């Protein structure tokens, strides 16, 4: 293995490989920062440029783009409360409050370092565990995916600020929205009176509306009075090392969690960042700061969503099975290069997996330098007068929604959810459970139905499989334990 890893690093003797890495990292950084684009569309956009390239250069460029774009999503999430992908939503929860406190530069520095550590730790795990862990992930069948989604939803209680009832309303709303579209087993349209609704509510426009456009409406309401002066970032090492050292537990745990969830095909970066955020909150000594500008919450989300990138690479390299939407596009890019990903990839084309490993390691410092240098410039965005910011964000929302599928329908969805988001926030109903339920609801229902088809209507499938049973027990505990603690506390009081 080490000879092969050396082979991977040797590929970087070629200046074109370095060029590919730089171009990929820069392009990914910018594409990720444009809401509505994001990593999978970014990789697809760059594929035509790889036609004439050497396969190693092409794949290094695309992987660098993937990793950098997954980070780039944090920039708009932090600065203007505009997560361009579901994986950046949890980053906005603490990132944007930090910007409102004038700490945009610090938030950006923390997020890039978190991302870098996430990739670095997970890449080391990838080199060692890609093959065995991918084989293990095959044990995840429909029953297990259903149970995993239930675990995710059971953690929602950790996201509801204050009122349990309002959290439940938000989750119910998200689950209801997730039922719209063609039934995946029978193909019958549900609540889809127009073919536009066949694939359900598109996630990116919903995100842009709920978070970004509703924020614009609040800015309009507040008027131009508020003005926050952003603390200037003095250098790329503006955040002292001691801050990171205090966060070391979260950095390591989020990296591990992000990697493992990334390996499971179909889970991916968004679920990784949600779970990491919630677990960070549960284990934190200062959980009350979460959602109000917690450094811990910010790095938990951002570290995990980047660690999931390496995770998603594992089944791709070991088995030729994509672990995420972006790795599915990467398979296409490899096939155009005449390389067939599959169980024989390590034997037939070892240069591909090992140059990917090498590019992840070498890419991290490159990404961090670009990110830290960029943070100084981006932080200035926070100083733009709020009326101008409102106009810019509204424009970004419209363009981002349109670009997500080249049509006007998502623009309507985005606008509608902007108004819904505004009303919900006025009513103090949290938005996070809606997004979580929308992402997990589809996964939960599809896999529940699939499991029930396989078991021919018998519920046995949910308790005769040990892995499913364990996950479901975890979910039940996550519901019951806070309830019991709550009751005890009340009795004492």
């Amino acid at each position: 293995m080490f000879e092969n890893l050396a082979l991977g690093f040797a590929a970087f003797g070629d200046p074109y490989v370095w060029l590919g890495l730089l171009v990929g990292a820069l392009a990914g950084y910018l594409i990720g920062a444009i809401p509505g684009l994001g990593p999978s569309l970014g990789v697809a956009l760059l594929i035509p440029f790889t036609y004439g390239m050497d396969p190693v250069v092409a794949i290094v460029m695309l992987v660098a783009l993937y990793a950098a774009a997954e980070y780039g999503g944090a920039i708009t999430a932090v600065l203007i409360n505009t997560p361009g992908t579901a994986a950046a939503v949890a980053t906005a929860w603490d990132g944007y409050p930090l910007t409102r406190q004038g700490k945009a530069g610090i938030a950006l520095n923390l997020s890039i370092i978190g991302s870098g550590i996430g990739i670095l730790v997970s890449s080391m795990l990838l080199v060692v565990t890609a093959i065995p862990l991918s084989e293990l992930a095959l044990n995840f069948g429909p029953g297990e995916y259903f149970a995993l989604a239930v675990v995710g939803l059971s953690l929602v209680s950790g996201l509801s600020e204050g009122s349990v009832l309002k959290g439940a309303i938000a989750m119910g709303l998200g689950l209801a929205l997730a039922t719209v579209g063609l039934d995946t087993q029978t193909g019958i349209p549900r609540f889809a009176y127009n073919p536009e609704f066949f694939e359900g509510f598109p996630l990116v426009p919903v995100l842009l509306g709920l978070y970004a456009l509703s924020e614009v409406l609040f800015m309009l309401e507040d008027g131009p009075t508020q003005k926050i002066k952003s603390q200037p970032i003095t250098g790329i090492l503006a955040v002292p090392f001691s801050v990171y050292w205090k966060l070391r537990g979260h950095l390591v745990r989020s990296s591990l969690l992000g990697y493992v969830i990334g390996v499971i095909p179909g889970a991916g970066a968004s679920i990784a960042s949600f779970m990491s955020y919630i677990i960070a909150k549960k284990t934190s000594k200062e959980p009350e700061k979460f959602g109000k500008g917690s450094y811990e919450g910010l790095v938990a989300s951002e570290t995990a969503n980047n660690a999931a990138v390496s995770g998603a690479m594992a089944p791709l390299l070991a088995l030729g099975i994509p672990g995420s939407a972006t790795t599915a596009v990467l398979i296409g890019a490899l096939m155009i290069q005449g390389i067939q990903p599959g169980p024989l990839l390590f034997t037939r084309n070892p240069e591909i997996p090992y140059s990917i490993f090498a590019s992840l390691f070498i890419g991290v410092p490159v990404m961090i330098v670009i990110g830290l240098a960029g943070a100084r410039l981006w932080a200035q965005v926070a100083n733009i007068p709020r009326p101008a910011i409102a106009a810019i964000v509204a424009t970004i929302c419209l363009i981002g929604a349109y670009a997500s599928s080249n049509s006007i329908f998502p623009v309507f969805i985005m606008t509608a959810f902007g108004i819904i988001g505004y009303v919900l926030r006025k009513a103090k109903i949290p938005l996070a459970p809606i997004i979580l339920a929308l992402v997990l609801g589809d996964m939960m229902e599809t896999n529940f139905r699939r499991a029930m088809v396989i078991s021919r209507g018998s519920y046995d499938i949910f308790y005769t499989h040990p892995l499913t049973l364990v996950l479901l027990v975890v979910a039940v505990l996550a519901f019951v334990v806070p309830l019991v603690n709550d009751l005890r506390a009340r009795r004492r009081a």
Partner: protein
Amino acid sequence: MTFTISRRSLGLALAATVALTGIPAMAQDTWQPEGPVRILMHTKPGGTADIFIRTLAATLEPAIGQPLVVENLPGAGGANQMNQIRRAEPDGLTLGINTVSHFTGMLTNLKGVFAPDNFSWIAAAQIDPILLFSSTESDIDTIEDLVALAKERGDGVVNIGGFGPVGSMQHIGISMFEKSAGIKLNWVAFEATPDILTALLGGHVDVGVSNLGPTLPFFESDRLEALAILGPDRLESLPDTPTVNEAGYPVNTDWVQVRGLFGPADMDPALQTQIADAFQLAMQAESYQDYAAKSGVETPDMGPEDYSAFVQQLMTVAEENLREQNLLN
């Protein structure tokens, strides 16, 4: 590669002729689009159809002297793509790639929204038969094993993982086989082919169905084994795997996955023929043929007339089968 070079020089020669004489030489025979050609896809980037057109673009672009702009318009069960194509100018600058799902869609979800007459069916570019396979770790090693097991366990007990819900292209194909073999399998719908493969490798379903491309690496690494092909002929990459007809379960072998080229209605028949010829010529290039062999797809020679007739036939077969399963209302 010699082929592409000669095409390119031919293109240059043509351009030179036009420039010098002002008369479009050979205009009757050769497609010379006046601007970039938009190819609209109904899928997200990275799917089989998407890889097909992006691979072909590499040889077609120099031949026609214009860029091919691939636009992904996923969503609405293909309606986003079909809408844009239906209202495009019939000048050959807006084309789309279709699969069998376009036809099953027009019979079910999109019935009354689109009909085959709304479009020109220009050429079939790929024929991609589907096949049945199992895990090498399972007891099912041949198609006979599968039929025997299904009979032994009873109707609807043996699970089969396939792409799309009941009434999808693959489900119809499997239903035809079930009827012929006198068995009934339990259809488990998946939304992506890799999910079918993982479910099969993990032992969550008994057999799977898919086109060859995504499964080939798993056959080569002995993780999966092919049982039978639901198509007219054996496949080059799997010489030992019989067709279902050879195995004694005769079905209508015209029911195959097809990737075709279509455009708005009322396209000039001469223009359609030119476009079909240009695609056919580009598909003969060595680089494209390499890719086609690897993906296990055939390159049929079907121009506008043949393809339109083929489309009619697919519609008839689909309608019959959907009616039999009470999926038409």
